């Protein structure tokens, strides 16, 4: 991933953008943060947040015109938050400890501020905080300017006096009764000070430039407040009525300019979001219950603490997190895509050290639901997919993560399972049925019956291809192995004369659509919908209500999803859609090999999905069905409904274990070859003849540890032929190890009575290599 690409991806995650209130506020008060603290009953912490941007919260909290409220996301759900009233509550209720002064290095370049209204005071305060010696000139005998025009019942005099005190406390030198013009010219100021800010927006003055006192008018740059004269800054003339918050905003902008001017840095760089703007942050407000504004018991006294807390709790704490809300994986890692893409970038970039995001990258199901719900179409699935390929290219993909799945694929594409045949007695195929590896593993009998049904119903020659589409390699980022799988498929398909491919698995469908677009594929479900259902399927009006789980690889395949619904309706089922279905469907936890990279997370994904409805689920992916049932959810494959006399009885059928999946595929091939084509298939591996007796409890341990029967058979074959084994004289058990590939398997076993195979007591594995030597 290039830096530029990273930036592009980061920019598409909008989670860190300001909430609308803060963006609309000319000085960007962190309203959400303030609400958060206040809702927790901590006005002191809330005040601290407000003070970071707002110098006079007690005053502004009483007179602000609140542009924030016009854009508040609570607006249509009970009314915008009472932002100013809560700012005032912060000032009134927060402990009035003076702000802690950061020891800024004292600078020696002096600044003059002319005008002691809100603007002048803000600029003086900001510059004093930055360490500049500031002298403030005010024509009248008191600070505050037009604040004194606000009626006392709205803005008590004591509040003005108390809050404006902070300016003197910050070290600003005040020169009252010193108007510009009589005895104090701009020229004088420019001689004594290195920068001057004219904050003269009071009646009787031309407010738009230093020329005002000289009878000239000079324009003020509204972005920087700079005038034509170097070092002189001024408040521009603004249309409309006076706005206290805009006055503060203009002055702050001038203070930033003065600081930049004195530091001799760019006046214009990176200032685009000063002043009010429209945020890119999206906040979903669907389903938010209306809640009206909390009234004040005493309007003049403002909110009591209790009232303020109640009001602040109405704040929606606006944020996006659309993807995180629907994805257990994105939620699990506790952050959001902007952070995640940075972590992935770092993970791919580091040369030495611990790669912390490996598991994160490998845990994504690659289902791209995130892109579906993202207002900016950011696709973490695509990012993770690409990252895995990079890791493989760099030689940094942890070998253990995907090896099991890749071995499974290798098995499916070996002589044990792979098969391509025209229908018996023919030499050409119009169609070829491609059931895929997992349906063949989970329900081999159904594959047989569907194949028979297709040959009967379509009226044209239908061949058969058994193998794996290569998806595990694609998911693992192993494009080398994936290309081999595709090439092998293509060869086998061409050998059959390139017939149309009937696909039962939506993952195969997706893979071929994406990587072999020249192949004409048709979903089994679309075909059945079009051609009619198997005769065995019982049609009736009333079979109850089910929910459909669309496999995640049907996202964007609306015709398949529609066909499945029509088939269900014809079978007599009513459908209650899950909250997330069709283009927003979720992964079952197997996609992208999440199941192998992060088992606990994948189980959580299953748990979450199956809890979405108490109804039985119907799906059309064998893997989804098996995983749901394994976690206790009554689930049916669409083929159960189409082919089985008593589908209900299948709803809790446990899916086969890993070894059984191999066995089922191999047996399916053997059986079809024998029954359909009249061919015998030899047992391929000698060790495969070793019979094992594995107690259920050991069996489930083997599943958990990803140890296959064939692994155990190989250990025993090795131990028995070489004599290399340990023995426990007390139990008579043997313990032996063997390393057929990258994993060392240990098996504790004993010969079964009467010489019939072996009883298996335990097995475990490690990847570390024991370097044997006879030397001790």
């Amino acid at each position: 991933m290039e830096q530029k690409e990273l930036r592009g991806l980061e920019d598409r995650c909008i989670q860190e953008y300001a909430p609308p209130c803060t963006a609309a506020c000319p000085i960007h008060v962190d309203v959400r943060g303030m609400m958060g603290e206040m809702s927790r009953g901590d006005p002191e912490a809330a005040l601290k947040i407000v003070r970071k941007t707002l110098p006079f919260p007690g005053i502004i909290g009483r007179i602000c015109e609140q542009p924030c409220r016009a854009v508040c996301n609570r607006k249509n759900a009970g009314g915008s938050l009472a932002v100013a009233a809560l700012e005032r509550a912060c000032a009134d209720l927060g402990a009035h400890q003076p702000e802690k002064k950061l020891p800024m290095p004292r600078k020696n370049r002096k600044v003059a501020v002319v005008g002691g209204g809100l603007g002048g005071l803000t600029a003086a305060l900001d510059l004093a905080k930055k360490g500049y010696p500031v002298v403030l000139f005010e024509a009248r005998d008191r600070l505050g300017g037009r604040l004194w025009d606000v009626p006392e019942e709205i803005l008590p005099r004591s509040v003005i006096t108390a809050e404006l005190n902070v300016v003197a406390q910050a070290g600003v030198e005040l020169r009252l009764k010193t108007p510009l013009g009589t005895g104090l010219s701009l020229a004088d100021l420019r001689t004594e000070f290195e920068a001057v800010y004219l904050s003269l927006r009071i009646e009787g003055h031309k407010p738009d430039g230093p020329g005002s006192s000289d009878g000239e008018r000079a324009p003020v740059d509204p972005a920087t407040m700079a005038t034509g004269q170097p070092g002189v800054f001024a408040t521009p003339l603004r249309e409309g009525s006076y706005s206290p918050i805009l006055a503060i905003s203009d002055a702050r902008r001038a203070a930033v300019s003065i600081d930049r001017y004195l530091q001799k840095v760019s006046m214009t760089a990176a200032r685009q979001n000063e002043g009010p703007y429209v945020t890119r942050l999206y906040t979903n407000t669907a389903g938010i219950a209306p809640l009206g504004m909390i009234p004040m018991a005493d309007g003049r006294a403002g909110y009591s603490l209790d009232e303020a807390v109640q009001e602040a709790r109405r704040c929606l704490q606006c944020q996006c997190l659309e993807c995180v809300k629907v994805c257990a994986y994105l939620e699990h890692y506790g952050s959001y895509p902007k952070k995640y893409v940075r972590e992935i970038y770092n993970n791919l970039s580091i040369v030495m050290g611990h790669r912390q995001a490996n598991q994160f990258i490998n845990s994504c199901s690659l289902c791209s639901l995130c892109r579906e719900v993202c207002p900016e179409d950011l696709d973490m699935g695509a990012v993770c997919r690409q990252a895995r390929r990079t890791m493989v290219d760099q030689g940094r993909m942890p070998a253990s993560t995907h090896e099991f799945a890749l071995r499974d694929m290798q098995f499916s594409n070996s002589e044990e399972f792979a098969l391509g045949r025209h229908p018996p007695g023919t030499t050409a195929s119009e169609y070829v049925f491609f059931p895929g590896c997992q349906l063949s593993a989970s329900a081999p009998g159904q594959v047989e019956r569907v194949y028979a049904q297709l040959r009967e119903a379509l009226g044209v020659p239908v061949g058969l291809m058994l193998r794996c589409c290569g998806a595990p390699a694609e998911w693992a980022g192993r494009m080398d192995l994936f290309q081999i799988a595709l090439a092998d498929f293509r060869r086998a398909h061409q050998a059959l004369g390139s017939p149309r491919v009937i696909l039962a698995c939506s993952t195969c469908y997706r893979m071929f659509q994406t990587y072999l677009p020249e192949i004409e594929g048709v979903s089994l479900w679309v075909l059945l919908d079009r051609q009619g259902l198997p005769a065995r399927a019982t049609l009736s009006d009333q079979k109850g209500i089910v929910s459909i789980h669309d496999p995640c690889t049907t996202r964007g395949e609306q015709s398949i999803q529609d066909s499945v619904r029509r088939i269900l309706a014809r079978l007599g089922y009513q459908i209650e859609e899950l909250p997330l279905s069709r283009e927003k469907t979720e992964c079952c936890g197997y996609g992208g090999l999440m199941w192998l990279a992060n088992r606990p997370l994948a189980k959580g994904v299953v748990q979450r999905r199956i809890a979405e409805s108490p109804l039985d689920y119907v799906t059309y992916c064998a893997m989804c069905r098996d995983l749901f049932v394994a976690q206790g959810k009554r689930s049916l494959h669409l083929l159960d409904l189409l082919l089985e006399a008593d589908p209900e009885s299948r709803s809790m059928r446990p899916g086969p274990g890993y070894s059984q999946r191999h066995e089922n595929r191999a047996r399916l091939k053997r059986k079809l070859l024998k029954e359909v084509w009249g061919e015998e298939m030899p047992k391929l591996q000698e060790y495969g003849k070793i019979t094992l007796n594995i107690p259920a409890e050991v069996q489930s341990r083997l599943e958990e540890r990803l140890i296959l029967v064939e692994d155990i058979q190989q250990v025993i074959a090795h131990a028995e032929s070489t004599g290399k084994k340990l023995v426990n004289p007390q139990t008579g058990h043997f313990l032996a190890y063997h390393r057929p590939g990258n994993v060392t398997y240990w098996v504790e076993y004993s010969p079964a009575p009467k010489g019939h195979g072996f009883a298996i007591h335990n097995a475990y594995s490690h990847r570390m290599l024991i370097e044997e030597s006879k030397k001790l």
Partner: protein
Amino acid sequence: MTETIDQTQRSNWRCAACGIALQPGKVTVSYLDNAYPVELLRCPRCGLTWVPEEIALGKMAEVEKALEDK
């Protein structure tokens, strides 16, 4: 997990071929171009080594993961 091989059985494993008890010895284990000397029980005659389940699934698995993420 360790019900079949526990501490009491530890000393009970013997080399089946040589018919003698295992003894502690230095063995090199390696993964991803990293080699470590460890002490494991092994046959003093033929060198057949025993990696107990708790070491395979504990320390070894930890080191494997750390090396894979390095």
